[in-house]
């Protein structure tokens, strides 16, 4: 899932300066699962903002709406009427959702209440870890299911570097060396041959915005 982190309260407050009527829009998918931007987090943020603005003698009227997914047109539709009376929208979705919201209501300022952080896994309630940088050319088949692009601090394709220190990455004793782990897993599977060969320079595929159209589908404008 996509993991996001709520922005510091001060930063959100600063963004909303001058606005008197704002709709906070949560998203019920990834950011709700990681406890950052779902219905409950919208309620907490609104309560905080409400109190803080009152304390400053500058009250703000806040609406709340949490939709299934902000990255999906179908679900945004329900907001069309609702957004009308508001001066601005405060989105708690990931960066993709925020942009889709802004695209749909181009005359409204749409402000981000979260920092989108990574594609990751749920280690435990409230504990998430990054696992993928969506490089568009997955190499997990020959790296023992451990991503060198994401989990190695230098994104090396021919690791480990000389800095690996007793299984830890040179950047921190808390960070396992991805390549040490890749080695260990492949050794256990008797597949070390996979990383004994030299892996050539990578043609990066994530240097421009990417689009995916599945076979049998078309962009809406092409479909017309």
């Amino acid at each position, binding site marked *: 899932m996509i993991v996001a982190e709520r922005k510091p309260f001060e930063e959100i407050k600063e963004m909303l300066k001058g606005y008197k009527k704002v709709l906070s829009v949560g998203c019920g998918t990834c950011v709700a699962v990681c406890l950052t931007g779902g219905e409950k987090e919208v309620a907490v943020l609104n309560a905080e903002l409400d109190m803080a603005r009152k304390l400053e003698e500058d009250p703000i009227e806040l609406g709340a709406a949490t939709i299934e997914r902000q990255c999906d047109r179908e679900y945004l539709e329900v907001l069309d009427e609702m957004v009308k009376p508001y001066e601005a929208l405060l989105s708690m979705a990931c960066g993709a959702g925020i942009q889709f919201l802004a695209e749909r209501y181009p005359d409204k300022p749409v402000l981000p209440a979260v920092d989108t952080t990574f594609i990751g896994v749920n280690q435990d309630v409230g504990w998430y870890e990054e696992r993928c940088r969506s490089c568009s050319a997955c190499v997990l088949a020959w790296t023992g299911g451990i991503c060198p692009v994401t989990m190695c*601090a*230098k*994104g*090396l*394709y*021919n*690791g*480990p*570097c*000389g*800095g*690996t*220190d*007793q*299984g830890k990455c*040179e*950047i921190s004793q808390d960070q396992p060396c991805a390549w*040490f782990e890749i*080695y*260990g897993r492949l*050794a256990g599977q008797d597949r*070390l041959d996979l990383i*004994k*060969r*030299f*892996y*050539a*320079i*990578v043609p*990066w595929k994530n240097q421009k915005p990417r689009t995916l159209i599945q076979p049998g589908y078309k962009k809406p404008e092409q479909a017309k």
Partner: protein
Amino acid sequence: MKSGSNLEKVLRAGHFAFTGELGPPRGTTAEEIVEKCEHLKGMVDAVNITDNQTAVVRMASWAACLILIQEGLEPNFQMVCRDRNRLAMQADILGAYTHGVRNMLCLTGDHCMFGDHPDAMGVFDIDSIQLINMVKTMRDEGKFQTGADIEDPPKIFIGAAANPFAEPYEWRVHRLDKKIEAGVDFIQTQCIYNMDRFRKWIEQANDMGLTEKVYILAGVTPMKNVGMARYMQKKVPGIEVPEDLIDRLKGVGKKQVAEEGIKIACEQVEEFKEMKGVHGVHMMAIEWEHKVPQIAEQAKVLPRPQID
């Protein structure tokens, strides 16, 4: 001859190579480099010029290389993958070669967080092994990384580092093998203190026939004092300092520690001269360039061979 560099000639002629190291200034004082050069002249076959070492900004490595050439020394241009993408790397290689640089050391580079710009983006467009291969393709095939022809390709003697002390130990020779497959000509190792581990590593490399395919220069850094030894032991990842080495430094009078450090280094050089698979020593006397003449003398590596 792949590059015709002095270092290549020395190694090819079967001499025991002796290289030095110099860090460019954190500013524009050329005199600082010139002064360090004075100590190194006639003492070493080539001098490594570090590239934003430990991720701290310094004068560009290639620029300091040019000063060395003016001073009559042969530079070994270090290049890290942290600070440039493949375009900038190839451009710098062309430029440096045009100005007379003939050796390169291809490195990954320390992570930015260790340096003076900890929040910088680490480029790592390609890694050190891929860099080796890119330089080789430029030299041997006369082609840029994407296949376009290079007019007058740069003839570079390609070096890389090796660390026999990083885990997993069993993997280290395979990494060396990968560098050879990528096209490396010579290796300079991490500073060696744990001689046992190093002997094992070179033995493995000998057994796999690797030391016949690549020149190996053993890395040596003399200890200046006990504090430095402790620091290297505790703080520098990938360096192993055995306790008995520290005991030996502690065993002499405070004033003699530096001399003892040099003595230990020279004993190491003596052993490396006899060690099968080792073709020279890379002496990293960090901020101790003025001691290099004494070390070279004491290690009996003088005079340096002159080959035309």
